[in-house]
């Protein structure tokens, strides 16, 4: 519920900010506040062990559920997240300029973050926990990169997301390992009954800890947090002090009851925690930017927190969660105070700040209270928590580990005291101001007397430096009270330690070991108190000696710089990615294809050799007639591979295709043979149409060595496929699915031609898919040629320009003959009927009267034959494909005989219309069967007696076949119009030409001539190939028209 509220608020936030301006933040603050209030109202019941549980099934199939549970730890985190969130939002309403850029986005992301953080701490499902965890990562990225126009901002955001996401992924792995090991993803169940120790559990623990370490900026991933200070200060206060960085601590605290006894856990927590505590404290001493001082301070405190909550004893855990709450209060407060100082003076550089405490006494008070809590001064919350922590460490059982940790914590705390004082001194004290650009250590003035309260702020003759100090303006009151509230709370909670203990001890009691700890303000003169006193003394001394200390720090090498290591790693990663890309993405088609083929040969070959016995029964042939066709196909294929001329290769390819058609006939597949012959013919023409633009010879490739590789690969592939061909037929163990096709075809499909019925009925969906591919291919051809439009104009004979002949351009060999004929004769010629309507648009030397006559006689015959094939295809060889190809071939012939204007006359439609209509008839009409109550593409048989024709039996799948027919005609027409007519037009208009391409027009003519004679030849082949199957198509073979026959004048 609350999460939904946050989500909704995040969505409306930009609009609200747009309308109300920055005041909208006050309204939005109510959302996290409601979460905090909700948690507070539950506090007594939670303490009593009554845990509210909310569960929504999310993806039941995957066992995902949204489970939320409020226990003590979640309660504490909810209060922190909600309370600090509300205060920071209220603070925002005065912090930003009304005109600041991107406020709406900021508000939305901020609330989204608050919501995900809430979800993170309330989640009881581990997958949900991970999702929320990543959501906080992403929103944090957006908030850090708020000033997207700043390089430092972008870099910091990127660094943060890379590191925390790496941790998040590790967390996911850990969660999955844990969930699988435990058999449940419910966190409470896993913790109550952890999986037994073992390699798997250890790996899961390591992954979880890695996630926590990155999120909470522990060594060695601490560097992202200071860089993340590029975020606006309220974000730093909320995400990088109170909420997000605590997620890691929360995770450690959550799983500590289950795994604290594991050695990996113990060592990681102890070593990383104390190292972070020390490194953070040491670095914080040397920063000049107030936010950076706090950031390194946070790093240091996070180390301490993880150390305490991860240690696994009840006392330490109690101290840990108490410190968690205290830290949220004082650190958020300090960031807010920094924001006020920044807003008031325009700088956060403690070398340039002076006298701010006098100008802003209340701000200084808030800062002082929070600092006091941070450094552990009594009677503040920080003191209570640290005291309890030291007590817990002192009582740690097990030899030298405890004392060592006590020393580490003591040293870290001394650093804390020192940088805390330094922060307050830097922000508020009046002191000599260093002009910008002065080296840091030279700037350290003699220590001002220590000041703990603003009233006592010393003002030693600093006034003459004031002119160099940043100017102080007075910010609004709204900025102050959230900081003050948090600071005072740090005092108030400390005064009621029993209440804190009462509320928090249920969590500590979940830990298996150690005696219960206590939160007290005054425990008597214990060793812990002594340590605290010593720490305070040393801290003050360190602060006083900060000048020499900084100078020392600057001289000593800083050792490996984690940030630098990170940048270098990222750089190496980029290089590695480039290398991998360079190796795998060769950019060379032969290499890619070669890899595919090698894998095919190796994979299939190994399977063939190991999985089968190649010793199969074979026959030399099915029928002796296979032999000549096989020899023709094989020989021509080999010759194609050797051919150096393009045209030769293509013609041989045609021969091979026709030979295959012959094989089809012998195999008992007349439909296939018919289609193959027709396709081969059209292919040949299309090839020639394009080849006329390409050089006659294949270019020389000097790579002789690679040729042998190709030969080897070719042989290997051939042998492998031959093996497959040998083995596959005898591998059949079931009866063919097509065994009953014959009866089914006749009974349900109403046709005797089983293949055709298979295409239009039994497997009609396959055919729909296939013709769709054809349509796409045709459209692709047209768009590659026309480039800008789907198709070009339709050339009509009437519109042909008189001054320009089609396919003219080459020297006219018969010009001398024609010169004899006078102009008048030409005029007389006009009255004579032409065999073809557009024949006169051709250049005279390109015309052939015999060809024209033959085409004239043949065209209509072919169309009728096509239609015959279409309608008889259901029972006899034929069908939509063959019919479409026959009609397409008729168009091809018209085009070859009469040029592009003749094509326009023959088929004055846009091919797109045919294509669309065809697909509609095939697929669309199939849907009509639905209306009639059948399934899609179901067919009906209608039988009736028609006078004259006799008994007529119509099957509805005929409509489907007509669709196929139209589409195939459309494809051929489209190809002819783009690769034929349009290329002609361009060649004649000179559009394709570059400086050296001037002879291309001549080439067009001769190649088209060649195409014509080729076509005639192909029909001759077709007649042996398809024999009886295509009686009509074979007719033109009888009339070989001489190429380029001159037109003799009258």
């Amino acid at each position, binding site marked *: 519920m609350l999460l939904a509220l946050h989500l909704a608020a995040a969505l409306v936030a930009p609009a609200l900010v747009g309308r109300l301006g920055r005041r909208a933040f006050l309204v939005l603050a109510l959302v996290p506040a409601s979460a905090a209030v909700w948690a507070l109202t539950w506090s007594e019941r939670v303490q009593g062990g009554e845990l509210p549980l909310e569960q929504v099934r999310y993806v039941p199939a995957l066992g995902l559920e949204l489970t939320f549970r409020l226990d003590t730890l979640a309660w504490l985190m909810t209060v922190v997240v909600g309370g600090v969130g509300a205060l920071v939002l209220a603070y925002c309403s005065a*912090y930003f*300029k*009304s005109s*600041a850029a991107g406020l709406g986005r900021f508000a939305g992301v901020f609330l989204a973050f608050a919501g995900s953080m809430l979800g993170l701490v309330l989640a009881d499902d581990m997958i949900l926990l991970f999702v929320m965890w990543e959501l906080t990562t992403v929103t944090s990225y957006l908030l850090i990169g708020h*000033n997207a126009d700043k390089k430092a901002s972008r870099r910091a955001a990127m660094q943060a997301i890379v590191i925390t996401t790496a941790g998040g992924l590790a967390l996911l792995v850990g969660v999955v390992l844990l969930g699988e090991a435990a058999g449940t993803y419910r966190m409470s169940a896993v913790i109550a009954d952890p999986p037994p120790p073992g390699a798997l559990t250890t790996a899961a623990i390591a992954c979880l800890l890695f996630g926590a370490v990155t999120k909470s900026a522990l060594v060695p991933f601490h560097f992202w947090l200071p860089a993340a200070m590029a975020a606006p200060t309220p974000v730093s206060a909320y995400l990088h002090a109170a909420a997000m960085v605590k997620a890691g601590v929360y995770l450690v605290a959550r799983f500590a009851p289950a795994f604290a006894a594991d050695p990996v856990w113990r060592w990681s927590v102890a070593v990383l925690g104390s190292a972070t505590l020390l490194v953070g404290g040491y670095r914080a001493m040397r920063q000049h930017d107030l936010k950076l001082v706090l950031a390194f301070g946070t790093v240091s405190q996070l180390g301490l927190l993880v150390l305490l909550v991860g240690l696994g004893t009840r006392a330490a855990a109690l101290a840990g969660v108490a410190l968690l709450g205290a830290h949220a209060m004082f650190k958020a407060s300090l960031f807010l105070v920094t924001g006020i100082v*920044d*807003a008031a003076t*325009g700088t956060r*550089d403690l070398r340039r700040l002076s006298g701010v405490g006098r100008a802003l006494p209340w701000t200084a008070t808030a800062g002082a209270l929070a600092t006091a809590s941070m450094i552990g001064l009594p009677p503040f919350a920080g003191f209570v928590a640290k005291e309890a922590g030291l007590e817990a460490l002192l009582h740690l059982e097990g030899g030298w580990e405890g004392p060592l940790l006590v020393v580490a914590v003591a040293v870290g705390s001394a650093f804390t005291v020192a940088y805390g004082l330094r922060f307050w001194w830097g922000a508020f004290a009046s002191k000599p101001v260093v002009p910008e650009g002065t080296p840091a250590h030279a700037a350290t003035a003699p220590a001002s007397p220590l000041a703990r309260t603003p009233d006592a702020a010393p003002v030693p003759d600093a006034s003459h430096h004031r002119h160099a100090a940043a100017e102080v*303006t*007075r910010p*609004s009151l709204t900025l102050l009270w959230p900081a003050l509230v948090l600071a005072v709370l740090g005092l108030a909670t400390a005064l009621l330690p029993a209440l804190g203990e009462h509320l928090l001890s249920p969590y500590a009691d979940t830990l298996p070991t150690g005696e219960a700890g206590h939160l007290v303000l005054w425990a008597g003169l214990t060793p812990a108190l002594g340590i605290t006193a010593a720490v305070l003394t040393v801290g003050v001394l360190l602060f006083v000696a900060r000048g020499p200390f900084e100078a020392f720090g600057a001289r000593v090498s800083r050792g490996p710089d984690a940030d630098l290591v990170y*940048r270098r790693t*990222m750089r190496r990663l980029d*290089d590695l990615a*480039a*290398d991998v*890309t*360079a190796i795998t*993405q060769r*950019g060379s088609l*032969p290499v890619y294809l070669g890899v595919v083929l090698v894998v095919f040969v190796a994979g299939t070959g190994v399977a063939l050799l190991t999985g089968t016995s190649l010793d199969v029964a074979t*026959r030399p042939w*099915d029928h002796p007639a*296979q032999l000549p066709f096989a020899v023709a196909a094989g020989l021509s*294929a*080999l010759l194609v591979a050797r051919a150096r001329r*393009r045209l030769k*290769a293509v013609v041989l390819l045609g021969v*091979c295709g026709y030979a295959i058609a012959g*094989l*089809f006939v012998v*195999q*008992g597949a*007349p439909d296939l043979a018919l289609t193959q012959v027709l396709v081969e013919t059209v292919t040949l023409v299309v090839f020639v149409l394009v080849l006329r*633009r*390409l050089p006659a010879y294949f*270019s020389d490739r000097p790579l002789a060595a690679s040729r042998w590789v190709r030969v080897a*690969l070719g*042989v290997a592939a*051939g042998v492998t496929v*031959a093996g*497959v*061909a040998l083995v596959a*037929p005898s591998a059949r163990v079931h009866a*063919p699915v097509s065994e009953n096709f*014959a*009866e089914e075809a*006749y009974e349900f499909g109403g046709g005797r031609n089983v293949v055709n019925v*298979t295409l239009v009925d039994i497997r009609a969906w*396959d055919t729909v898919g*296939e013709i769709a591919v054809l349509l796409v291919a*045709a459209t692709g051809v047209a768009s*590659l040629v026309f480039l800008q439009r789907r198709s070009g104009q339709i050339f009509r004979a009437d519109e042909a320009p008189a001054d320009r002949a089609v396919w003219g351009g080459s020297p006219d060999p018969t010009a001398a003959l024609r010169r004899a004929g006078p102009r008048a004769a030409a005029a007389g010629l006009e009255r004579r009927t032409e065999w073809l309507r557009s024949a006169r648009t051709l250049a005279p030397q390109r015309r052939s009267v015999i060809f024209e006559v033959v085409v004239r006689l043949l065209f209509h015959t072919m169309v009728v034959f096509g239609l015959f094939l279409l309608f008889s295809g259901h029972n006899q060889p034929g069908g939509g494909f063959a019919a479409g190809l026959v009609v397409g071939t008729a168009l091809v012939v018209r085009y070859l005989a009469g040029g592009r204007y003749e094509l326009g006359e023959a088929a004055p439609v846009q091919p797109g219309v045919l294509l669309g209509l065809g697909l509609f008839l095939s697929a669309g009409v199939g849907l009509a069967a639905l209306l009639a109550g059948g399934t899609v593409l179901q067919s009906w048989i209608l039988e009736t007696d028609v006078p004259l024709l006799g008994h007529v039996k119509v099957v509805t799948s005929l409509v489907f076949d007509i669709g196929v027919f139209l589409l*195939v005609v459309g*494809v051929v027409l489209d*190809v002819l119009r783009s*690769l034929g007519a349009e*290329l002609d037009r361009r060649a004649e208009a000179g559009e*394709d030409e570059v400086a050296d391409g001037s002879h291309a027009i001549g080439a067009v003519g001769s190649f088209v001539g060649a195409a014509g004679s080729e076509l005639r030849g192909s029909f001759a082949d077709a007649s042996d190939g398809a024999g009886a199957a295509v009686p009509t198509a074979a007719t033109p073979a009888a009339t070989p028209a001489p190429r380029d026959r001159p037109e003799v004048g009258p």
Partner: protein
Amino acid sequence: MIDMRPSLVLVLVIAVLVGTGVYLLLERSLTRVLVGAVLLSNGVNLLLLVAGGAAGRPPLTGDEGPGPSSDPLPQALTLTAIVITLGLTAFLLAMAYRSWQLHRHDEVQDDVEDRRIARLAARDERAFTDADTEADTGRGRSSLDEEAAELHDDTDEGTRGGAR
């Protein structure tokens, strides 16, 4: 039941067609690639047919001659494959034409961008410079302090003499 023993003649033809097809497919000239593809598809069509069993009568009902009829299913599959090959041929030819239009040849060149990346990778150079990630990894990089000093929030400056 159809005789499932493969015919050696057909197997040999398939081997030759596939072999020559692959050989041509690995060429640079788009025309040869296309010719190779057509040969290859012819070979595969035959393979389909062989997998369907031995030759037989045409699969036409009501035309019962001697012997079993051939398997219609591979024939239907092959038929569509043949027509698709036509579409493929036309499309590749259009591409060859386009290539000629642009470059005056139909050779399939290596991808320029891929080669550039490979060259850069060999020299360990960046393909592009990204000021954000391009870490000044050397000595002179800006410190956190300096970067922090550059960044300021768009804050309300407040007023002189306002609250505290």
